[in-house]
């Protein structure tokens, strides 16, 4: 448990305002969570894995005040990681994990056109989880700033950036997979 002591030490210093300790802490946690998620979920797609890692460290950041300094930090990190993994799996389950290869014939005929068919992008937008869709439409269609979007959706700028990035990645995957 040497590692856990070091993590606890880093986090203690981070909570007291040591920025470098916080960065080191998050980097090590990201490594742990990546290993844990890879082992537990056997994700084929590395970007799904990174999604979980990022979700988890975002949650750890948002809930860092819930670590009690007199408690071991390993179970705390593990609990948050598990919470986020279950969440991710549930969301995936409820969306039914449609593999793009299964619907590619229905979506669009192959097109030689370089630009992407509009309805395909619309379909991709519709398939986004609600939060991501709201972020994308606020940022692109309504042309709002990240700060504005964050305050409108009652979340942080970091979370908006992450959601936007994921949405773009998903659209890219959908559109790219079909053409």
């Amino acid at each position: 448990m040497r590692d856990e002591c070091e993590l606890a030490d880093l986090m203690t210093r981070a909570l007291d305002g040591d920025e470098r300790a916080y960065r080191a802490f998050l980097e090590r946690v990201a490594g742990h969570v990546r290993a844990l998620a890879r082992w537990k979920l056997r994700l084929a797609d590395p970007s799904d894995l990174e999604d979980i890692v990022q979700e988890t460290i975002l949650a750890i950041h948002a809930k860092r005040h819930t670590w009690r300094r007199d408690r071991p930090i390993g179970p705390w990190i593990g609990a948050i990681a598990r919470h986020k993994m279950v969440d991710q799996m549930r969301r995936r389950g409820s969306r039914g994990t449609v593999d793009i290869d299964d619907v590619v014939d229905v979506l669009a005929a192959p097109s030689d056109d370089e630009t992407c068919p509009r309805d395909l992008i619309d379909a991709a937008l519709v398939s986004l989880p609600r939060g991501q869709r709201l972020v994308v439409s606020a940022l692109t269609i309504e042309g709002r700033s990240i700060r504005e979007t964050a305050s409108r959706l009652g979340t942080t700028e970091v979370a908006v950036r992450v959601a936007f990035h994921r949405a773009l990645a998903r659209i890219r995957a959908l559109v790219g997979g079909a053409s």
Partner: protein
Amino acid sequence: MRTEDLIASLTADAKRSARRPAPTILPAALAGTLLAVVVFAVLVGKIRPDIAGAVGEIRFLLKFAVTLSLAGAAYAVLRESAYPEGVHRRRLLVLAVPAVVVLSCVAFELAALPADAVTRSLVGSNSVACLVNVSLMGIGPLGLFVLALRRAAPAHPALSGIAAGLLAGAIAATVYAAYCPDDSPLFVATWYLLAIGGLAALGAATARVVARW
């Protein structure tokens, strides 16, 4: 976004945002008690005129044994469940304490009362008012607890919500018991617990939505 970039922005964010205090279940419980007393003062505005005599009555005191044991157990579960690690399953057994208290009181009453008095004690003289007042007095504290849970990180928001509802209801019932003219454990087990159960259900439903993270 690459994970390193995310870490960089989170590090910057940690510097910017003020340090947040640890979850606030205890202050919420104290504020909730105060709120219940205020709502009681507004809704009812008086305690029993015969309170001095009632204090010597075993049934009157048993009401507080029920509500206070429930409040204590619910508080223990709520506080522990507000953290990501969650409540250990064995710690949930603390909820058996108020259950045993209620059941013993009911058994005592059934043994003590003549058969024809049972229905009268159960229905009491005040059941609807009790149901309404305990519910209304509990809603404010419940709101405070759910907000506290939102700042915390409950492993199972619905479970925390149930504990929050039980605590809010138990606090409201404790305060209301000082007024309520019905002292029979049969009355308490029926009407008090009905109101508290309603708050627990409401707590579970709202915490699932509000305290998700």
